Structures are given as structure tokens and as C-alpha cells.
């Protein structure tokens, strides 16, 4: 008998060992030996028994000291939702009843194909007629220093779960490396077991192999809301600790302390045994359609195999493989054709489903339904009238239906318009026009499943005056929960009201279906760096946006990327581009900054000179304690600014969505009622905040006592000094809808007043929508939310303040000086007609 090339002598089982060599005798039945007592190995045996129970005598070797259990359910065991007994698939009785020899806790260490025998670690040698390798996968361990420290484990079997449970019993910090399915389930379980968990994920999107960015983001925020820390784009450099794990160090230097590190970065087919026996192995053990390896008597099944170039990491393909394998072993050869897989995340309350290919290649189109505020996102990818991929988040009820259409490759052209609403609507009569389909529904047809609202009820509430989606949601709750019926409600609105439908505050502008918050979040999540990139990635419907979205995007990018983003002047409103206020006759008014409303003879002289030199028809004292010079022509602006700069004055930003003025009263320096130096604090505040770009204009005032001469309680941020310190007020404004401030808190020192101011501004900058002033923003999010971020969360406040000061370090650069020095002269000078060409 000849040995195959590549067989390693060292791996040869010792045939002359003392153990009895089992022979194929046994009543003439062939002996099937299975290596691997896991999900695929046992399922294969079950399938075989179902076809021909008498055909083979079966021996199963298992490395784990257990009967076959459902590996998938290790997550619920970790999470405390199930016990080990609950997840056993085949009990000892099953093995006994079917005459199966289970050799558990004794892995096979070598295969001798020439002798047709396997040898186990304990030295047991068993002869086979047919050998089935079902060794599954090995967790991939990233080769970083410290990977072998005690306390560093993977998540693959019951022993790992036991280790995690033991660690969790002591509480403390855990780090999970890998934000895929496995890692997130481990993180979830450990969190429920009371550990403080940080997930470190190399990619920018969680579960990036199953989810697209949008769904990944929703998932991330949901997990964060559950108290996990999720670090995406984070690269592990080292696991440190003396004698046991103490923490993880990232490439960027960050250190995360941990007494337990779970590596869940991926799996690799477990092929060492097959390789050692000289079987053909690529990524996995190579098998044909009948799961036969390069040796006709050796079969392989499960995660350890590679079929037609694919290796799988989910159970569904195993079932198909096991059927084909059992067919082959019982001579009916059907053949395995590969599998399309779908995934669900098993974290209670978080429904995530994905199937097929959603990377959106050439010629594929997306049908997307998103209701971010309610955490629902559905995306079906269609190519040539067929579903090729689906991602569902928040509401995965229709996952099976999409998956079925995908697997069958069914033509969906006829139901395309309703596809995203799921089977209940898409199969309703095959109507092409969604409006017609909705119109065709009977009055008692259910529109909103979550809240049990019928079409008749929705129509009635529209007829009684609900003229927008929001109004319908408010009036009868339809579409107010999961949002999956939003499209239907919108269709009903337009059916009843025609053009009279009022659009809600839904999308940022008509160029996109995304709302402000969605766009902003995606800018950060996807690290977008320019307006065209945002428009591209978020599928803008216009080539270069409109006058609503361009300034908003410019601001969002500027806020997200201080010092990095290149401001797009062409996306700024005229005033911010010209750094002056345009007036109705096309001339400009110029307001130099006067810190805290203070001025001096030199400044006043320079202003007087400018007024005379450029023939300004009017000078006015503004409500914000500045001097406003009117009637300057755009050509003269740079020269005016140069003159004002020369006297030490910079832009007053009276024209921008930015800090306008800090208005002060004279305070304790002069006033007999004054309690603190309100003027001084005002000047300091203005020095700190000037030049900052905001979602809308921002006004500050500091009053020296509750008489409040600076009118601080109708400002975006107002300070009212009292004997014992400083009352901080937020969210006020004059204007059309006068609003008095809410009291944020009281602080005792001037420095605190400044710190809270910086943090509040940054929170507003980061979270308010473009063109939303502090008053409507606070009414939207609630003053309690603002308090929770600024007053209660000390570390958070400090971080906000630091981010504000960082952004300020890039923005406190006087735009007037730049222009006076010649920058963007094209904006101020007309073109010169040169020659006349006759034709």
C-alpha cells in the first residue's frame, strides 16, 4: 500500500499500539468513524440514520467532554437565558439507542489513510471504512503580545462560557475584541452578567460583513445605550498584564483595563488533522458536491470544509451539506449546490437580520425604508428584478420572506413598489402603483400593525384635519411605532388631500430623504470629508444640492472635522461669504467686534474715519452693544476692514450663524447693585467664544445682578450674577417668538461659568440641527437632557469643553484680516471687460 504525498510520518498513528484495533467485522456492516461531535458531525449521522439506520456502524470522536449541544445557544447560556441542559441536542440515550460509540473528551490526533485508521490523543486506534471529518472551526487568535496570558479566551465552546461566567462572577471590566456576531453576543452576555464591557472593533461598522453602515450605526447606538463602550476603527496593539491579563493597549496608545479579554475576531476552518493526513486542503478541506474529500473514503462536512470556493460560518449550510452527504453515503447522490446564508443577531430586543449580498455592486439598486427615530431600517438590494441581498434592523419579521425570494431567485418586478413593506402588502393583488394598491384596500384593512390602526381610521383622522405624517402619528398612532407603514400612511395622505399634504420635518431638504440627524450621524460614522462625498454616499438626488442643504452640510462637516475640513465658501450664505450683512440695496453693513461692548477712543476714531472715508450714510448702535456702519459697497469692504484692523478691531460676526455678541452691564466695577464683575466675565466669555460657527446665531449676555440690565434671560446663554456666584441660563431669544431662558444651574466661580458656557455651546454645535436656535432645540430635546449632559455628567462636560476649545483653536482667525490681505479678491472685484470681438 502506498502513502500519499505530503503525509507526515510524525502524524502516522501507531498501528502497533497496545489498544485493540477495531476491525470492520461487526456483521459485515461498514464502520463510519466521525471526527467531531459537533453540530455538523451529529447532524450528518442523524440524516444517515433517517435514510438507512442499518447500513453503518458509527463511532463518534469528540474533543469536548460533552454530548452534542447546540453551539449557537452558547450565547443565551452566557446571557443567563438558558442552561447547558437546555441546549443539548443529542442525549446519551440517543447515542446508546442508535448503537453509536461516543468517545468524548479524546480528540483524534492522526489519520492513517493507508491503514484506514484514526488514532486519538489517548492512543486509541480505530479502523474505519468511511471517515467523516467534522472538526468545525478554530477561533482566530490575533498575534499580538499577551495573547497567551491567562484571562484571554475565545468564544467557541462550553469551556469558554464557563471561563467567562467565572470571570463575570468577580465583576470588573471585560474587553471583547471583534464587533461581529460572536463578539457582540459575548459582549451582551457579559454585560448582562454585570461586567463593564468595551468592544474593540477594527472596522468602522459593527458586523460589517452582515450589515451596511446605516444598520451598523443603529446597532452601535443601541448597544451604547445599553452601557457598552464600542470603539470602532480601533486596532489592538497589545494585551498587557503581569502573569494575567490586565488590559488592552490600542495602536493609538489608548489603554483599556480588563480582567477578561474575549477574542472574537473570526474563525478558521479546523484543517490541521486533514492536512496532516495529506488530504487536499485550501482554506478548508476541499470537498465535492457529495462532501467527499480528495480521498474517496474520507468525507468532510461543516465549517471545516471548502466547497466550490466557499467556506461557511453559519449552521444553515451545514444542514444542506449533511443532507447531500447522507444521500451520497446511501447511494442516492443528490449533490450539494452551495448555500446562500442569512444571519440574525441573538441579542434580546435587538433585531438584526441580513442575507445575501448587499454591497451594492454594478447594476444593483437599493430599496430603503428608514425610520431612524424609531430604530427601523430596511434595505433590500435588487438586481435584474431579483432580490440579491437584504438588511433589516429593528423589524426583522419579514426577513424569512425576503430570504425566500432571494434563494428562489424570484422575479419581483411586479411587487417591487411594495416590496419594502413586506409580504402583507406586496402580495396584495400585484398592483403596480402603490397608491392604487392602497386605494384598493378595504376600510378595515390594517395599515399599522403595531398599533392596530385600520385604513378607515387613518382616513378619518386625515379628514378630521391631520394634514401631515406627524399629525397622523399624533392623532391615531398609525406609523408611530416601528414606522414600517410610513409609506402607506403617506400614500393615504396624498390620496385624501392631494397636494394639500404638509410635509413634516422629515428630510433635510428636497435633495435627500435623510433627515438632519441622519446626515450628521453618517458624516461622523463614515468619516466623510467633503460635501460631494456626503452627496455621493447618501445618494443626493441633485448634482450639487440646493441653498438649504449646502450650508447645512458645510456646517456639519466643519463641526465634525475642526482643523481638517476645508470650508466651502460657495456653500455659505452671502453674509458669511462676504463677512458683512447684505442690505436690501445690495450694500453691506459692517460691525466690528467690541469685546463685551467695551470700546475706547482709538476704536471710535477708526470707526469715525471709516464712516467719513467711505461715505457711510448711517452709523447705528445695535441692540447687542456694537456700532454698525451701513452702506458699504462690496468693493470697499477689504479696505474698510484693513482700516478697522489697524485700530485693533476684528470681525464682529454680526452676519454669521456664529457667536454674535456678548452683551454686558457695568456690574460690580461701577454699579451700586453689582455683585460680580459682569463686564470682565463678558469680555472673557467673548474672547473664548468669538469666531465659532454654530447651527444658528448665538447671543450671550452677562448681567451683574438680578436686575438684569443686559437682558441675559432672553439670550442663548445668559449669566446673571448673584452674591453667591453665577446663575447660568440657556435657550432664550428675542425675535418673533420671544422666549425666556431656562435655568441651567448655578455655579460659584467665574471659571466654572466659562467652562459650562463652552460645554453648552459645544453640545449645541454638535446636536442641534442647522438653523435651529437654542430655544427650539431645547424645546425639542428638553432642558433636563441638557442638564444631564452639562450639569450632571462631569466628564462629559469636560470633554465637550475640550472639543469646543479645540475647534476654537482653528476658528479664531479674523476673516477680515485675511480678506484685507488680499484673500478672495475675486469676491469683491468685478470682472474687467477687455476686448470687443465682432461677429
Amino acid at each position, binding site marked *: 500500500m502506498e502513502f500519499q504525498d505530503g503525509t507526515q510520518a510524525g502524524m502516522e498513528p501507531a498501528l502497533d499500539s497496545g489498544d485493540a484495533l477495531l476491525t470492520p467485522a461487526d456483521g459485515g456492516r461498514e464502520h463510519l468513524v466521525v471526527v467531531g461531535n459537533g453540530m455538523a458531525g451529529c447532524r450528518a449521522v442523524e440524516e444517515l440514520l433517517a435514510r438507512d439506520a442499518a447500513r453503518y456502524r458509527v463511532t463518534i470522536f469528540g474533543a469536548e467532554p460533552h454530548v452534542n449541544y447546540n453551539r449557537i445557544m452558547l450565547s443565551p447560556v452566557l446571557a443567563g437565558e438558558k442552561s447547558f441542559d437546555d441546549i443539548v441536542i443529542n442525549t446519551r440515550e440517543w447515542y446508546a439507542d442508535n448503537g453509536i460509540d461516543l468517545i468524548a473528551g479524546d480528540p483524534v490526533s492522526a489519520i492513517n489513510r493507508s491503514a484506514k485508521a484514526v488514532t486519538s490523543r489517548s492512543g486509541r486506534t480505530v479502523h474505519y471504512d468511511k471517515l467523516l471529518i467534522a472538526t468545525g472551526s478554530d477561533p482566530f487568535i490575533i498575534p499580538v503580545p499577551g495573547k497567551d496570558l491567562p484571562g484571554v479566551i475565545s468564544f467557541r465552546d462550553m469551556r469558554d462560557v464557563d471561563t467567562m461566567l467565572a470571570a463575570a462572577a468577580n465583576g470588573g471590566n471585560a474587553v471583547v475584541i471583534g464587533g461581529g456576531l460572536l463578539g457582540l453576543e459575548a459582549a451582551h452576555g457579559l454585560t448582562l452578567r454585570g461586567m463593564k464591557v468595551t468592544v474593540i472593533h477594527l472596522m468602522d461598522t459593527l458586523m460589517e460583513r452582515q450589515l451596511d453602515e446605516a444598520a451598523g450605526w443603529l446597532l452601535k447606538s443601541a448597544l451604547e445605550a445599553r452601557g457598552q463602550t464600542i470603539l470602532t476603527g480601533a486596532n489592538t496593539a497589545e494585551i498587557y498584564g503581569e502573569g494575567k491579563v490586565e488590559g488592552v493597549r490600542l495602536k493609538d496608545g489608548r489603554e483599556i483595563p480588563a480582567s477578561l479579554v474575549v477574542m472574537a475576531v473570526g474563525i478558521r476552518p479546523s484543517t490541521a488533522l486533514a492536512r496532516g493526513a495529506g488530504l487536499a486542503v485550501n482554506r478548508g478541506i476541499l470537498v465535492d458536491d457529495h462532501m467527499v474529500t480528495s480521498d474517496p473514503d474520507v468525507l468532510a462536512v461543516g465549517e471545516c470544509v471548502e466547497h466550490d470556493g466557499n467556506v461557511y460560518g453559519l449552521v444553515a449550510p451545514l444542514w444542506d451539506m449533511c443532507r447531500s452527504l447522507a444521500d451520497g453515503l446511501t447511494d442516492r447522490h443528490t449533490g450539494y449546490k452551495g448555500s446562500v446564508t442569512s444571519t440574525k443577531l441573538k441579542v434580546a430586543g435587538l433585531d438584526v437580520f441580513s442575507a445575501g449580498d448587499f454591497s451594492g455592486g454594478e447594476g444593483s439598486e437599493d430599496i430603503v425604508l428608514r425610520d431612524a427615530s424609531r430604530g427601523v431600517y430596511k434595505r433590500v438590494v435588487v438586481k435584474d428584478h431579483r432580490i440579491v441581498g437584504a438588511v433589516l434592523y429593528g423589524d426583522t419579521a419579514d426577513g424569512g420572506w425576503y430570504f425566500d425570494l432571494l434563494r428562489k431567485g424570484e422575479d419581483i418586478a411586479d411587487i417591487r413598489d411594495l416590496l419594502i413593506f413586506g409580504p402583507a402588502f406586496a402580495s396584495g393583488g400585484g398592483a403596480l402603483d402603490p397608491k392604487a394598491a392602497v386605494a384598493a384596500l378595504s376600510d378595515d384593512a390594517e395599515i399599522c400593525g403595531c398599533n392596530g390602526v385600520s385604513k378607515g381610521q387613518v382616513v378619518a383622522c386625515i379628514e378630521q384635519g391631520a394634514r401631515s405624517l406627524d399629525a397622523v402619528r399624533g392623532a391615531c398612532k398609525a406609523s408611530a411605532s416601528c414606522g414600517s407603514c410610513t409609506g402607506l400612511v403617506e400614500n393615504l395622505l396624498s390620496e385624501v388631500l392631494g397636494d394639500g399634504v404638509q410635509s413634516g420635518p422629515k428630510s433635510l431638504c428636497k435633495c435627500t430623504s435623510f433627515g438632519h440627524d441622519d446626515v450628521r450621524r453618517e458624516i461622523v460614522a463614515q468619516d466623510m470629508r467633503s460635501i460631494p462625498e456626503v452627496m455621493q454616499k447618501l445618494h443626493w438626488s*441633485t448634482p*450639487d444640492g440646493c441653498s438649504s442643504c449646502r450650508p447645512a452640510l458645510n456646517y456639519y462637516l466643519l463641526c465634525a472635522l475642526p482643523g481638517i475640513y476645508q470650508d466651502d465658501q460657495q456653500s455659505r450664505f452671502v453674509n458669511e461669504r462676504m463677512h458683512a450683512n447684505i442690505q436690501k440695496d*445690495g450694500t453691506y453693513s459692517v460691525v466690528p467686534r467690541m469685546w463685551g461692548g467695551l470700546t475706547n477712543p482709538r476704536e471710535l476714531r477708526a470707526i469715525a474715519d471709516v464712516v467719513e472715508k467711505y461715505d457711510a450714510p448711517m452709523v447705528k448702535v445695535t441692540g447687542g452693544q456694537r456700532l454698525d456702519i451701513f452702506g458699504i459697497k462690496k468693493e470697499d469692504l477689504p479696505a474698510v476692514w484693513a482700516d478697522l484692523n489697524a485700530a485693533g478691531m476684528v470681525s464682529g460676526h454680526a452676519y454669521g450663524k456664529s457667536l454674535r455678541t456678548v452683551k454686558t452691564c457695568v456690574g460690580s466695577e461701577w454699579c451700586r447693585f453689582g455683585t460680580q464683575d459682569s463686564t470682565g466675565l463678558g469680555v472673557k466669555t467673548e474672547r473664548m467664544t468669538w469666531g465659532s460657527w454654530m447651527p444658528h446665531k448665538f447671543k450671550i449676555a452677562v448681567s451683574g445682578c438680578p436686575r438684569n440690565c443686559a437682558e441675559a434671560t432672553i439670550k442663548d446663554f445668559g449669566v446673571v450674577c448673584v452674591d453667591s456666584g453665577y446663575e447660568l441660563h440657556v435657550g432664550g431669544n428675542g425675535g418673533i417668538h420671544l422666549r425666556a431662558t431656562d435655568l441651567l444651574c448655578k455655579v460659584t466661580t467665574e471659571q466654572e461659568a466659562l467652562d459650562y458656557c463652552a460645554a453648552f455651546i459645544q453640545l449645541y454645535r454638535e446636536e442641534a440641527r442647522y438653523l435651529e436656535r437654542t430655544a427650539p432645540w431645547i424645546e425639542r430635546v428638553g432642558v433636563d437632557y441638557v442638564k444631564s449632559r452639562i450639569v450632571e455628567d462631569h466628564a462629559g462636560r469636560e470633554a465637550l469643553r475640550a472639543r469646543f476649545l479645540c475647534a476654537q483653536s482653528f476658528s479664531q482667525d479674523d476673516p477680515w484680516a485675511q480678506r484685507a490681505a488680499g484673500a478672495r479678491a475675486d469676491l469683491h472685484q468685478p*470682472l474687467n*471687460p477687455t476686448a470687443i470681438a465682432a*461677429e
Partner: protein
Amino acid sequence: MTDWIDIGTIADIPQRGARTVQIGGEKEIAVFRTGDDQVFALVNECPHKNGPLSQGIVHGHNVACPLHNWTIALKTGEAQGNDEGCTPTVAVRMDGDRILIAQPVQAREAA
């Protein structure tokens, strides 16, 4: 016959922006360059209340007036959407990267 006046090169106008040009004593003209590098010229006055269109945000082949945000089509000078009004257009011709605009009628007659 049209008299064409060379007013400069396309590079003199920022993309998605505009410059103005004055020919004789005529009304100021706004010359726009769009995101796809097309050039249009209009009298620099909004049909609403004479806002200087050259200072607006250029998007697609439109400009949003800086005063009250009417949208004016660059090609026709017409107000878009529900607003009504029209700004006179000025013919533009490109000669390589040089921009030529048609001499306004009155200016030509006076000449």
C-alpha cells in the same frame, strides 16, 4: 450681428459662484459658473426686489437669491417654484476658456 465682449476666463469665476461685470453705463451683469462648468449671464437683479443674484448660492443651473431665497433659473432668468418673475438673460459664448458675452442692446446703440 452680435457684438461679443471678452470678459475674462472661466477660471476667474469660482465654481458654483459668480462675478459681476459692468459694460458702459448698463445695468450690472452677473456671470455664473456652475458645478459642471457651464457659464450663464443674467442682469444682476432679482425679479423680486432687485437682490444681487451674483451673491446667491449657485446650485445645479439655478441661483438662490441672497435676499429672500427665490430660486432663479440661470438659463431663462425665470423664478422657479411658486414665485413669478423673470430676470433678463445675457447671451454667453465660450471661446476656449475665454468668456464672451453679448453686448447689451442699449450699450451697442449708444456706441
